[in-house]
Each structure stands twice: as C-alpha cells, then as structure tokens.
C-alpha cells in the first residue's frame, strides 16, 4: 500500500479537497489586508488591490486585542505547565511506585475520561463563584488541570521505560525524586512535547468555560474577545478589522503547531492503538 502510486483521479480529488480547506483561510487573509471602507463598498474587492496594513495597525494601537492576547498566552501557558507537571508526577507515581489504593485511584482517574464538560461546567461555575475565582487567571487555568488523559498518557509512557534503569540508579544511591528528575523525566521529552502542544491548543481555543468565567472585557481570552467583537460586528468594527483580528489570533497557535508538527504526529502513533 505504502509505496503504491496515487491514481490521477485521487490526486485530483486531494487537490480539490486541499482547495476547499485553504480557500476560506486565503480569503480571510485577503480580507484582513483590505480597508474597511473598500469592503463596505464592495466585499468582492478582496480579490484585487490595493491592500493595506491599517487593520493590523489598528489592532496594535487602540483595541483590547493585545490584552486578550496576553490573557490567552498566560492561561494557555499556565495550563500547559500545570498539566505537564501534575501528569508527569502522577504518571511516574502510578507507573512505578507501590502504595495502598494505587489501582483504585488509577481507575478513578481513568473514569474521568468519560466525564464530558457538560456534566461539571455549571456546578463548577457555582463553586468558583463561591471561591471568588471568576475573572482571574487561576479560575481560567484550574479546569484544564483536571484532565485524566495527561495522567493516563504519562503513566503509559513511564511504564514503557525499562525498569532496569530505576534499579541501577537506586543501587547508586539515588533518591526516588532524583531518579524521577534526573534519569526518567528526560526520557519522556517526546511525550511531554505532544501532551504540551495539545494542552496548549485546547486551552488556547477553549470557549465555553472562559465565556462564562471571564465576564469583564479586560479578562477575556482571545477566543471570547473575538466572539464579543463578532457579536457587535454591526455596530463597531469593520469586516477587514475582524478578519485581521482572526489572523492575528491564529498566529501564535500556528507557530506552536508548525514547530511541533513532527513530534505530534509521531507521538500520536503510541496512543491511537489503545
């Protein structure tokens, strides 16, 4: 299968599909470089010049977009670091250490995989209101840290590392933590990269939770901020400005994605078969 050449009809279908995937993005990009006035007169104007950078200049100057960008970066980075730390610690614990109720606790964690967001989001909103966590970074980050998948993923990864490594290190007089930190953790880098990218992506693009938790506009993440701009479209900003916001908001995530693409695809191979 792998080496077989693609039939010309298949190639045509693939190219057509690629066109359908790309056309909306290219169109968005073109619109973002058009002045709002020109688009007001004729939105078909996107396909011809003159193009301008004024929408991007407007983002950098006046709007809240930069604040939203900062919020998104803080929330997504916080979620990623938190998930990597908690999942690595727990993954090592479940994979390597013996303690009472280990199996039971692991099963309880796995059951979390079956809990959809809808089952907890409203009561969580109540809980966070009681604790005064809304409109704060911890309030936006904490829900991302409950993901069972990271723990499951890291546990699997630690289990796949030969135990002889542990025994050799422990004979040399290393403590459990030194063993974890100096010997095993560096070996898990590919898994960390994959888990990190997907956590960052999910936190960056999350909509439902920040929509109800961050209600003052200076605490919006980019996703929620863009939604509010979209809702107020008629009154305020023009089409070109909206599209420039969309492009601007996609840049950081595209950079992360492209930088880690190889790692993601390679590491996914380990999880897909389970």
């Amino acid at each position, binding site marked *: 299968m792998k080496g077989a050449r693609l039939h010309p009809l298949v190639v045509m279908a693939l190219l057509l599909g*690629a066109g359908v995937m790309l*056309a909306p993005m290219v169109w968005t990009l073109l*619109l973002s470089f058009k002045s709002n006035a020109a688009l007001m007169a004729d*939105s078909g104007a996107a396909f011809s010049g003159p193009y301008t950078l004024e929408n991007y200049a407007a983002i950098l100057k006046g709007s809240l977009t930069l604040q939203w960008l900062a919020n998104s970066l803080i929330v997504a980075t916080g979620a990623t670091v938190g998930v990597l730390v908690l999942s690595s610690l727990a993954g090592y614990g479940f994979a390597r250490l013996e303690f009472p109720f280990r199996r039971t606790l692991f099963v309880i964690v796995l059951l979390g995989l079956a809990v*959809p967001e809808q089952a907890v989001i409203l009561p969580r909103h109540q809980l966070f209101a009681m604790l005064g966590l809304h409109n704060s970074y911890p309030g936006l980050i904490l829900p991302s840290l409950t993901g069972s998948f990271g723990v499951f993923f890291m546990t699997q990864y630690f289990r796949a590392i030969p135990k002889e490594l542990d025994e050799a290190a422990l004979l040399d007089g290393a403590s459990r933590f030194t063993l974890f930190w100096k010997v095993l953790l560096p070996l898990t880098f590919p898994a960390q990269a994959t888990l990190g990218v997907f956590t960052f992506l999910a936190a960056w693009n999350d909509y439902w939770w920040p929509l109800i938790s961050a209600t003052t506009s200076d605490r919006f993440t980019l996703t929620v901020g863009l939604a509010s701009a979209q809702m107020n479209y008629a009154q305020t900003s023009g089409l070109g400005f909206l599209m420039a916001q969309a492009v601007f908001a996609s840049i950081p995530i595209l950079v992360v994605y492209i930088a880690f693409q190889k790692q993601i695809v390679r590491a996914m191979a380990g999880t897909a078969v389970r």
Partner: protein
Amino acid sequence: MTAALRDRLAGYAFVGPFLLVYAAVLIVPLVMGIVISLHRADLFGRREWIGLDNYAQALGDPVLHQAFGNTVLLAVLIVPPLTVIALLLALALNRPGKFAAVLRGVFFSSLVLSVTIVTLIWRFILTPDAGLIAEGLEAAGRAPIPFLSDPDLVIPAIAVTTLWWSLGFPVMLILAGLQQVPGDIYEAAALDGAGRWTVLRRITLPAIRRTLLLVVMLQTAAQLQLFGQAQLLTGGGPGGASRTIVLYIFEVSFGRWELGYATAIAELLFGMIIALTLLQYWLVTRHEEPRA
C-alpha cells in the same frame, strides 16, 4: 522510617497534587451537579428541594425536544461523513514523499483554529449578503442562498462548517493507527497476490478498527456537545431551528438563570453520551477475544 513506608509516602507525594486538583475541580462539581439538579436553584445560591421535578419538566419541554432533534441530526450529519472522509484521506496520505507531507499539513491546518475564528470565517462565507458562496453564485448568474436564515439549510450549513473545522484530528488519529500496522503483513499479502481492495478489506480495516472506534466515540461525544458554532453563527435561530442541547443549557442557565433545570438537562445529556459511547464500544468489540 522503613524503606517500605518511605516508598508509600513517596507514592502519595507523586500522585497527590493531581488527585487534589482532580477531586476539587472535577469530582466535587460532578457531585454538586447531581444535587443541584434536584433543586429549584438560581445562579445566586437560592435552593429549594424539588426531587425529580426538573427531570420531569425536561421530558415534557418542547424546546428541549426540538434541541434534542437538532443535536442528533447534527451528529448524524457530521460523524459518519467525517469518519469516512478522514479514513479516505488517511489512506491516501499514508505514504512518504513531499506531496503527501504538504497535503497532510493542509488537512490538519483548520484544527488549530478556535471556534470563534471558524465561525467568523464561515459566517462571511455563508452570508447571502456578498459572502464567498454568494459571490460565486452571482458570477454564475444565480441568486444567493440564505444558508443561515433558512430553517432547512441552517443545520447542514453548521454541519459543513464543523466538518471543515474538525477534519484534522481524525485524519491524524487514523494515520497514526495505519502506521502501527506491521509492514510485513502487507508484504505477505503481496506475495499471495492479493489485490488492493482485498488488502484494504481483509488487512487494513480490521487492523485499525480500534482506531476507527475511537474516532467515532470521540466525535459522537464531541458533536452531541456542539455549542460554539450554533451560538456564534445563528444564536440557535431561525426560530430554534439550530438550537442544540448545550446551547439550550447555556440559555436556561445564563439567560433564564434556572440553574437547577439547566443542570438536570446537562445530567441527561451526560447519561446519553455515556450510554452511546458504551453501546458503540460494545457493538465493535463484542466479537473480539478479550484482550490480555
């Protein structure tokens, strides 16, 4: 302190931090949800025990029935085509070379966009008022189609938007599954003179059935919770024709402040997702040998 005791303490020290967050931010709300759903409750802490009344109300609520129908229709319009298209793409793109690599990148690309950006783009593709499709129709001498304000077209329009957005992840999963199939099976099949179609049906598809099952289970659960696309593109309109269950939960809780009722609907959705996931798992794996 004995070594065994120290090991036990080390165990809890390693798994403890996650379990604390997990208990506080997932398990506590999960239990709270069941309790709240049995109360008449608003967003501001008022509570009155009413037993199963919220659930009874849900069973007789025509708006919820419509939202349920819309949601199921969306899932049916999205999950099977998504799985089939993703499978075909993965089969075609599972090969070395620059051409396949570039196309993989193209088909993965939309998955990094947030729902806000996807709906922003597609709103202006779908709008009859000088949208991308309308421009094309106009060039062909046809009248524009009001996709988002026609009750018969709005669900398919949201389904297409979602397909475009969600394609990358299933393709990735299936590609990963295909790479796990040992190459020597294919060599043996080639030696036996098996044709391409036979290889696909007898070797490839059985080998990745677990991956396909995972894709279907994940996508079903995700699409039954479809929210952002409907909320941002149409607000559930026209006339509730695109209101999904989760959008209704959002309206009931944050529009009408009926937290107890909204939570009861969420619990029903939770039960439905669990039941469907288990059913799909059972249907696919019931003939398999139990795994060691």
